[in-house]
């Protein structure tokens, strides 16, 4: 498991350039361009179970869900950031991508600490420090448990 560390204000253009928004629609088209203008190695080297650490305002900018779809498809276990931009946060909920808002955990990671994450327990361990994060509100947990908003919606429609 690798930790990818980035700075503040990682915006949606860095995560997925706007020029591909209307030419890349399938997940296989999206993946190679993920984080292209931020870190050319990311799409080549990322592996399932990797974690991203970042600073403030991660995902700011456009309503662009390709970054969320791409990170989820690559199997990113969680994005840990000091804070997240609103639309990105909502998009992550809707795809079941785990976001952990913890400025303390981000500060604790300097590049060499061992990192482990237990989503069941709500525990993130960075070196010798343990961080806990609160459970999701029930309305949002239901979406995550269904496997994302579309699955949640489809199930709800079937029941009606």
């Amino acid at each position, binding site marked *: 498991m690798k930790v990818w560390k980035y700075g503040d204000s990682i915006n949606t253009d*860095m995560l997925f350039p*706007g020029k591909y928004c209307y030419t890349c629609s399938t997940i296989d088209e999206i993946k190679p361009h993920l984080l292209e203008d931020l870190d050319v190695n990311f799409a080549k080297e990322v592996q399932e179970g990797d974690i991203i650490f970042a600073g403030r305002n991660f995902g700011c900018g456009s309503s662009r869900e390709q970054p969320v779809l791409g990170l989820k498809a690559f199997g990113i276990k969680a994005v840990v950031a000091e804070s997240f931009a609103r639309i990105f946060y909502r998009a992550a909920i809707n795809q079941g991508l785990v976001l952990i808002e913890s400025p303390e955990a981000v500060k604790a990671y300097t590049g060499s600490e061992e990192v482990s994450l237990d989503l069941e327990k709500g525990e993130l361990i960075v070196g010798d420090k343990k961080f806990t994060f609160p459970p999701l509100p029930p309305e949002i947990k239901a979406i995550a448990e269904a496997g994302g908003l579309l699955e949640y919606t489809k199930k709800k429609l079937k029941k009606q």
Partner: protein
Amino acid sequence: MPATFAEKVLAEKSKNDTVVPGQIVTVKPDHLLMHDNAAPITAKITKELDEYGVVNPELPIIVLDHVIPAASEKTAINHQKIREFVNKFQIKNFFDIGCGICHQVVVEKGLGLPGKIILGSDSHTCSYGAVGCFSTGIDRTEAAALLLTGETWLKVPQSIKMALKGKLNPPVSAKDLILHIIGDMRADGATYCSVEYHGAVDSLDVQERFTLANMGVEMGAKLSVFPVDDITKNYFNTIGVAQDSFEVFWADQDAKYMLEKEYDMSEVEPVVAFPHTVDNVKNIYEAKGIPVNQCLVGTCTNGRLSDLEAAAKLLKGKKVHPNTRLLVLPASKSIYEEAIEKGTIKTLVEAGAVILPPGCGPCLGAHQGALAPGEKCISTANRNFKGRMGCKDAEIYLASPATVAASALTGTISDPREVA
């Protein structure tokens, strides 16, 4: 209990007596905005749409504006799929290429109204706060789910009170004011919050309020909203919206705010947001003399008539400097027509401007007016992120229409007060 704008609208729409920040409520938005992304949105639910249909054909508003006219076979197919969807499900509020940028169209066509909730799969959906509408951005998946169910959850936001005083000194404009505010608040200073404008708002017309509301998301805001006053009502009269077609909400005097700020508009000077973040705002003096290869006036932030006129005023009888190029995009067809009628377009073309179709154009780097490595562009758009205009090795500076026009004349970033 005293309440903010956001608390009042969400209480009313979720059928609660009162709501508090942090509370999650279920609402049925009045409209769902989509643009060229309506194709990928509807593609997510092809089977369900066949089975259940669109929950309400009046709910969606679709405006083709992001890549218009189509730039390639792929984007043409995208538009084709949207037109098929519109016909199949009898979508009433459809605006094909050439009508304008979605946010301008929503307000101009009287769809963005006070007290309505509009969710849009575009981050600048917050623009309709200019006319007292509760509007904010969502992602594509949520837009797809809304087409099927017509309802979603919203968290009641904390609110920030921006008290304005004084008056702008032209050519200092609303764009300078909002860049000044974002430079102070920073790009995440209003994250998740509802930003309310109070105080001397009566010196700002609807076009100027639009510029301010539009950029709310650049400080992280969920909403960015103005009170509905005589200026708003007069605007509705000019576009033929009946006064009884909406309900006005506004904050109580003693509502609780997370933060209160005061800005004296008379002290604002021309400013420029340097690459590569919108909050990297500096006084024009620090930018003066930077050579620019491209100048852009337009977009949902500054493509209205007063913006084109501000540029034309400086360019009248003069020529764009040979070292640069000037692109102009009217934000809508009706603005375009008015600008033709008033001679504004003629002035701009005579000065050497290239007029692009009313749409998003170069703003997001998807087509038209893309930049080459090493190039610098000064633009009236709302974002200067790295790679935004198609090239990660180019630089984008954000400024007002007057500053962009002044820079087009000299080929370097210039103070409109000195060029005029």
